[in-house]
């Protein structure tokens, strides 16, 4: 008896009740055609019953005014529907097509950057920086989000990123909603399921920029690319998800897209009331040439504690990355970060971060260390202003300070983010 057996059993148990269920009182569009006749009840007899049936069919085809009884009937209707049902007038609702628009959102990020040591040459990275000793204002990104249910079987999420001089489809993928056996497939262009921060959009991060190790070891920006991601939610009482992805990735700006396999095991455990521990293990192998590979490994830990009442919480987050090359030239390395963040209340938060990564640019070989602190003001749920100060030290002892002041806003309907 092994886990595939259990998976089959679970699949059976998941499928059976749905097969046995009664007809949906408000069938969704594709089911309506076959569903309606079945719900008619006993065979209609005589002219009266026929008339009644005709009336019902006319109503079903949208030719009758919506009766108040129908509106009040037990509904699986979504929140927006009842109002529409009670307002129905002759000619229906001319704005109905707006209801089918996907959720549209835009998130803009801007920053003022200053550093005392020349980030561009000594610690090159993605993210806001300017010439040494000069305050530089930067437009970072405008992320346009389009999100919607596609049909009863899948949803789609599209994120287009506008950056200075470039437009890129950051992610555009379909997610299945009802595969059996705890499976879920994402297909399209997507962030690789490797580690915690790599699969998050920058506006979800507490700190303004990515940890150095992510850029130096995984990918210059985000490890991502077109492909397929299969995720299995194990039938356990705690959250255990195994993800297997095959994608074409191009980690560096000069790299060609090559096939990459990614595996991630993520678990969340309840530690105490309001406290959750998440632990993830990730591995990836990218084909560099026939018989030659780039191997990536990662461990991530996330501890979040939030009292039930109030808006404050504390999170402790850390990731370790390692990179090796097999049968091909390339720099192996190890790095990571650890951060502590405190959300004081609805309006303020602060945190500290320690960063370690292989040095880059004109720095001597070895590890670069960075110590950062951040203060955040959230004027509302839809805006935040962050001040991040860091001290950076290269392996050769050269050090310097960095300051970032970042503004971010979000408009429109942007889907809530996973934990």
């Amino acid at each position: 008896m092994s886990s595939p057996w259990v998976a089959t059993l679970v699949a059976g148990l998941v499928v059976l009740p749905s097969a046995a269920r009664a007809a949906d009182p408000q069938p969704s569009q594709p089911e309506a055609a076959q569903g309606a006749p079945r719900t008619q009840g006993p065979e209609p007899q005589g002219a009266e019953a026929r008339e009644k049936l005709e009336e019902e069919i006319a109503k079903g085809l949208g030719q009758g005014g919506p009766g108040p009884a129908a509106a009040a009937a037990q509904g699986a209707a979504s929140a927006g529907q009842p109002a529409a049902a009670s307002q129905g007038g002759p000619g229906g609702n001319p704005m109905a097509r707006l209801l089918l628009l996907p959720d549209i959102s835009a998130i803009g990020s801007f920053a003022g950057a200053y550093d005392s040591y020349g980030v561009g040459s000594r610690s090159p990275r993605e993210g806001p920086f300017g010439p040494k000793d000069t305050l530089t204002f930067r437009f970072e990104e405008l992320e346009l989000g389009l999100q919607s249910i596609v049909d009863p079987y899948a949803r789609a999420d599209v994120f287009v990123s506008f950056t200075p001089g470039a437009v890129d489809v950051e992610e555009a993928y379909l997610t299945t909603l009802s595969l059996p056996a705890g499976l879920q497939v994402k297909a399209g262009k997507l962030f690789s399921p490797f580690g915690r921060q790599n699969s998050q959009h920058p506006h979800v991060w507490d700190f303004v920029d990515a940890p150095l190790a992510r850029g130096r070891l995984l990918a210059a920006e985000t490890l991502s690319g077109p492909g397929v991601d299969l995720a299995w939610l194990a039938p356990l009482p705690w959250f255990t998800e195994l993800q297997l992805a095959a994608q074409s990735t191009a980690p560096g700006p000069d790299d060609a897209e090559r096939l990459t396999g990614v595996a991630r095991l993520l678990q969340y455990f309840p530690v105490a009331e309001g406290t959750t521990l998440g632990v993830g293990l990730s591995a990836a192998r990218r084909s560099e040439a026939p018989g030659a590979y780039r191997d990536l490994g990662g461990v991530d830990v996330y501890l979040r504690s939030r009292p039930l009442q109030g808006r404050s919480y504390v999170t402790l987050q850390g990731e370790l990355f390692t990179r090796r090359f097999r049968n091909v030239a390339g720099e192996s390395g190890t790095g990571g970060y650890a951060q502590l963040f405190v959300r004081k209340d609805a309006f303020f938060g602060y945190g500290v971060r320690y960063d370690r990564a292989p040095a880059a640019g004109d720095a001597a070989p070895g590890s670069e260390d960075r110590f950062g602190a951040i203060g955040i003001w959230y004027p509302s749920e839809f805006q935040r202003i962050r001040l991040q100060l860091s001290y950076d030290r290269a392996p050769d002892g050269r050090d310097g300070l960095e300051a970032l002041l970042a503004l971010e806003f979000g408009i429109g309907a942007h889907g809530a983010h996973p934990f």
Partner: protein
Amino acid sequence: MSSLDLKRLALAALLLAAVLPDRAAAAVKVVTTTEGLAALAREVGGDRVQVESLSRGVQDPHFVDANPMLAVKLRNADLLVDVGLDLEIGWLPPLVNQSRNGEIQPSGARRLTAASAVQVLDVPTGPVSRAQGDLHPGGNPHFLTDPRRALKVAEAIAGKLSALDGAGAGTYAQRLRDFEKRLQAAQARWEQELAPVKGRKLFTRHRTMTYFLDWTGIVSAGELEPRPGVPPPPGHLAELVLVAQREGVKAISVENYYDTKSAEVVSRHSSAKIVLVPGDVGGEPGLDSYEKYVGLVVSRIAGALR
């Protein structure tokens, strides 16, 4: 048997232990977003259902963490009952998407949005923008403070349960009738208790009491928040103090998950007393039924306004 086999067997046993007891029980698994909805589902479902709420009564239902452990609960749900009107917009959608339970998606066969059963108030009629604060574009979602609407929701739950579990339809109908009888008796008592304070004025922190006021005839003199979700500036509080003095406002009701600082300021400068009320069933120890919850809110408000 090799140690590998043993390990596999142990793992399989562990998996089974985790899966089987839940599935073996024939009860309909109902997951609700709030404890108020859970209490109503228990009233009509009785022993035929196993009910669990994703949030706790002491929590602000607008701000629950989208903890993936909640997605695990949704995975096996036979029915998901949510409030709707965007109350859970910040946390429920990602959980539903993670759950792999396609039928609990909005409009799914196993989803009941309670708002669809009640007449909704505070529906914005003009243009809607975030300049008005973090408002609910679909209308006010705090309708369980009104027992008449709670009964409508209980009816909808009973209807949905009967559709999903036809064998229990009789039980659900009977339990609904029993609940209705008890609730209406309680409602008559509450209305009597509130009769002397009908028409009196109170402030609320957020627009959480709209339906309670609609039911009781108590009048809102304003909210501490100038706009939903926006913290009150001193000017607004000063205005409320003047209103309180002018109109004889006697109480400021604040759900116990809110901070009371601004209420204290208004209270200090006027004769309005702070009334801490539970936000939902389970909002205080011992509040394990819908009747106890409304009963407590009624007695606190009636006491403060007398």
